[in-house]
């Protein structure tokens, strides 16, 4: 009896040791699997973060980061005094918020309209068409938009047919921001509907049946069943978009703007690019970029916190 127990115990000890050894071996393998990716992330994401010290220096490339003089906060005070810098913050905010609002409303309306259609072929054809622009680059679309909205482009030709005056949309400070917001919404609204269409399939069909029996019209059903059904998704996406209020869309602006509309269309990202990589004002550009990175970081963290608190959303 006792010998049997003893042998069982040693067996347990042995298997425990093997299991531990195996776990150690597995963990070692995990580290090796992560190694190449982590090395690349370190070189191209973490190392540049140390370059942030340039924002607090009067950086001179020939002297390097260790040889350049410290400048304290002068780069930042300079930024707050420069009228251009103030303007680009305003531009960024206005354009980004415009895109967020329109980019939230249009897909919801479109998804609700699409939801009313029962003809499958029609529905999927429309979807195929409206998703397409999402996959095209702003180089391609920017070229198209520049052609279409130019002084002798299609839009102006049509305006003239109706006896309206030609407008330089791309060189007009009154038109440039709305143009950015509308064309961005045009590109992304179709793709944005996917989430809502997925949410719509989750609504219990029996709700509609009982509502119809009670004599509720389609409009009433949309208002009282469909909208509340997708409301959590709307709130979630709205919250997450908080992280984007300083992302006005570099690719789009870069491919559509020109010096005539810098006053209303120049955003933080394009400004940092021109200051840093064209005019070689490394320290100043890094300071402006850092300002944006820090604010965006805080906003994203806050929006994730809100989303996880109120919608149970977690990315990992």
């Amino acid at each position: 009896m006792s010998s049997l127990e003893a042998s069982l115990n040693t067996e347990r000890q042995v298997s425990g040791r093997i299991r531990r050894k195996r776990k150690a071996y597995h963990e070692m393998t995990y580290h090796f699997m992560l190694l190449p990716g982590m090395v690349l992330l370190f070189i191209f994401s973490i190392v540049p973060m140390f370059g942030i010290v340039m924002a607090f220096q009067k950086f001179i490339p020939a002297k390097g980061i260790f040889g350049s003089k410290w400048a304290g906060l002068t780069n930042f005070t300079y930024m707050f005094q420069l009228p251009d810098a103030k303007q680009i913050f305003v531009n960024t905010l206005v354009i980004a918020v415009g895109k967020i609002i329109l980019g939230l409303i249009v897909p919801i309306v479109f998804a609700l309209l699409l939801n009313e259609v029962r003809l499958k072929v029609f529905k999927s054809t429309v979807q195929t068409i409206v998703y397409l622009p999402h996959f095209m680059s702003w180089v391609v679309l920017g070229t198209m938009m520049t052609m279409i909205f130019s002084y002798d482009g299609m839009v102006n030709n049509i305006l003239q047919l109706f006896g309206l005056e030609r407008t330089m949309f791309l060189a007009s400070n009154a038109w440039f921001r709305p143009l950015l917001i509308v064309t961005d919404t045009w590109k992304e609204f179709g793709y944005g509907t996917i989430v809502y269409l997925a949410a719509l399939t989750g609504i219990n069909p029996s709700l509609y049946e009982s509502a119809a029996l009670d004599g509720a019209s389609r409009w009433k059903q949309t208002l009282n069943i469909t909208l509340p059904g997708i409301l959590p998704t709307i709130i979630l996406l709205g919250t997450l978009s908080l992280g984007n209020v300083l992302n006005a869309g570099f690719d789009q602006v870069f491919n559509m703007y020109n010096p005539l509309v810098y006053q209303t269309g120049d955003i933080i990202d394009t400004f940092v690019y021109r200051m840093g990589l064209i005019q070689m004002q490394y320290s100043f550009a890094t300071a402006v970029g850092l300002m944006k990175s820090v604010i965006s970081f805080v906003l994203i963290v806050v929006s994730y916190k809100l989303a996880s608190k109120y919608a149970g959303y977690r990315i990992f």
Partner: protein
Amino acid sequence: MIQSRTFGAQASRFLIILVLVLIACLSLAPIINTIMVSVSSSTAVNAGKVYFLPVDINFSSYAKILDDAKFWRAFLVSVERVALGGAINMLLTVLMAYPLSRTASQFRARNVYMWIIVFTMLFSGGIVPWYMVISKLGMINSIWALVLPGAVPVFNVILLMNFFKGIPKEMEEAAFIDGAGPLKILWHIFIPVSMPSLATITLFVIVGHWNNFFDGIVLINDSHKIPLQTYLQQLSLTRDQMQNLSVEQLQQYNKISNTTLNSAKILVSMIPILLIYPFLQRYLIHGIVLGSVKE
């Protein structure tokens, strides 16, 4: 769903379909106009006669592109970066997603890695230090500059990790008891099960590489080595050249720039995207579910 058959309901359904058709047309309008411009004569285009039908139909722009060595060189660079960059992206995504999908008790360092990775996604040093690191490494003008800095697609890693987490434990248990190591389990169980997810991510990675123009502008100075999107971007005047132009000069510039040829060029650049678009669309819904809005 119960549909009412009253006249009002019929009329509103018809109206909805009409609106949807209009929106779909609006989505296609710029693309169709560009196609028509590319097959019309320059004189007709400049006279503002081309809307949604070709005028003086001819394919001379496309013939010109066929002989354009610069265009095809850039096209090849793009193909190269998609193949090389896409392969590296996918390899690293799979290799990183698996260990990260383990629980913290299975892999004690898991959360440390996770925090570092998420931090790199949410915060960056900005474009100037990024450029300096790459240039210090001597990668300017090399294809590696287009491939390595973005080699770890952090967002995709998290997508795949979440998918791996959802794979039932029972599936790997048998292999584990047979003594299979992590690489074997990943290769024989996780990868076959997640083929649709991998297809989705591959397609997104391909589109991302194909459409990227910015790293080509900043990191490649040699015009023989720029990718296609960068080549197309530089067809228009550089911003610095435009700096000194007045409104009238800008109008003049728009007139003389070769609209028909440029239209044809951007359309040819879209062909690879259009070729994979049917696959993209099939996996689209899957990709959204993959990035599950709710867990």
